[in-house]
């Protein structure tokens, strides 16, 4: 089986986001970038599938630091790496990249595309259902387990409240992964060093693209309910005031 996993670099969720002066976008200058969490899960699921039933994993990555993440993907068990070039200092819109990713999936003749169920920047919608529509392949998002069967895939989907739905899906298919069947593996420094010698191919935008949707008027921090009570400036103060709340019965 041939698998394609799509990895997107996103601003580190722990990073403070500064806005450009005219609020038209995020200032990317000092941001740290990290692999989208869900894409990390998708990578793990792809490698687990390969280990269980053989085949080849192609990792496709885009965004700031994509090369570094592709080396990590190779160290974890991906067979080939492709860096897909996107506009620097711009949001990665899943809608905009979808046609290119679909074209790569087709050209490579893959049986299954996996990517994270969502990403921080997919204002214009999520990648997996776009790919599913463009490729006319069945798709399923929010997956928590994937296994190969005689007729295709057995896929589990999380629906909240602990409810899990199970599906049989024919190949080729597209999956938006929520959680891999196992937590992403640790990769050692020596494996990373070995992988850093492997080649990384590049792919540029080629296909006719979908445009971003609507005009972005502004970005802003959400309004905050200023009625919140501050528990203090230091951890010690906060801990003491927090216990006062409980002891006084101010909170349940």
């Amino acid at each position, binding site marked *: 089986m041939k698998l394609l996993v799509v990895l997107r670099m996103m601003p580190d969720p722990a990073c403070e986001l500064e806005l450009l002066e005219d609020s038209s976008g995020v200032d990317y200058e000092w941001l740290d970038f990290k692999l989208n969490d869900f894409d990390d899960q998708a990578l793990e699921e792809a490698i687990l599938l390969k280990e269980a039933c053989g085949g080849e994993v192609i990792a496709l990555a885009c965004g700031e630091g994509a090369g570094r993440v592709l080396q990590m993907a190779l160290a974890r068990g991906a067979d080939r790496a492709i860096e897909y070039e996107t506009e620097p200092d711009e949001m990665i819109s899943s809608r905009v990249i979808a046609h290119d990713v679909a074209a790569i999936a087709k050209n490579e003749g893959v049986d299954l595309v996996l990517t994270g169920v969502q990403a921080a920047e*997919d204002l214009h919608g999520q990648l997996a259902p776009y790919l599913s529509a463009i490729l006319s392949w069945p798709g399923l998002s929010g997956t928590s387990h994937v296994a190969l069967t005689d007729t295709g895939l057995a896929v589990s989907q999380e629906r909240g409240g602990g409810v899990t739905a199970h599906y049989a899906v024919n190949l080729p298919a597209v999956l938006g992964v929520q*959680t891999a069947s196992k937590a992403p593996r640790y990769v050692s420094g020596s494996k990373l060093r070995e992988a850093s010698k492997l080649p990384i191919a590049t792919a540029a935008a080629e296909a006719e693209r979908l445009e971003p949707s609507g005009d972005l008027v502004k970005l802003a921090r959400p309004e905050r309910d200023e009625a*919140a009570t501050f528990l203090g400036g230091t951890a010690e*103060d906060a801990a003491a005031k927090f216990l006062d709340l409980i*002891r006084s019965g101010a909170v349940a």
Partner: protein
Amino acid sequence: MKVLVISDPSDTGFEPVSLELITAARNVCGEDGEVTVAALGHPDAAKDQFGAADKVVSLLSETVGLPTAEAAQAALASLVVEDRPDVVLVAYSALGLDIGPWLAARCDLDMLAYVTGLERDGADLLVRSQIYGGKLDATSRIGAGCVLSLTPGAFEAAPSQPASDVLTRGTDAEAGNSSRLTGVDRPELTGVDLTQADRILCVGRGIGDETGIEQARGLATALSAELAGSRPVVDGGLLEKLRQVGKSGQKVKPGLYIALGVSGAPEHLEGMSSAEAIVAINSDPDAPIFNVAHYVATCDMFDFMDALEELLEENPVAAAGNAA
């Protein structure tokens, strides 16, 4: 404006967000507009509940339980092509996620996700979306011909009332048959049930590893709270799935919710923002959890846990509520 609302089915009826979509549709359709609900499956429940819309169309009416994304996509695409709605509203849910961008690509429509606010501005809509895990609100101007995916809980529910009539629309039996539902699991009612807890101590991604979890577990016990985690903690294998709070975990409403190092992405807030009292400790002053918390401190979660441990050792607290 003609607004098409795509109901969000459960395996027995419809999710509450379906009625919230009708409210959002009413807000923007205008006086000469029309709100149509496309009910996926469960035609009887649709007739009972969706009377706040002008029209109710039942799709996949023969489907028992949950429809597959593929079947829903095919049925909806044919309806959209025929009816040409100006705006399509869908829930940001497991099924809705697979419907929105798919319809946009297939029916040549624009698409905005994570929508929490919506207003009409002449022929356009001004749409507010939460991006970057709820850290920023993006306002977009968008014209007719779009799909909007709405976050559950962002709009009031429209009244649930009987509809005078439900039109049943047949579907192409051949469409959407490359995936099928094979079963639905419900959580076993053994072990922890967060939905019944009076106090919950929830840790976020910053908890790091087993050592952090053990410290948090000790504090949870000392505070008579159940230990819970946000999605990254559970996905990382540090806590079991039954202890996950949020969209893909449990929806909880305890008397006291203590969030340590939880950033508060919209998917997490969906599961806990109606807790009676929310205490949030986070070192990031921009963490969205602060937007819903009642008691807040900006400090390192480990410093806070160390300080709390020390104080509790000197002087333990009594158990919560009537358990004392």
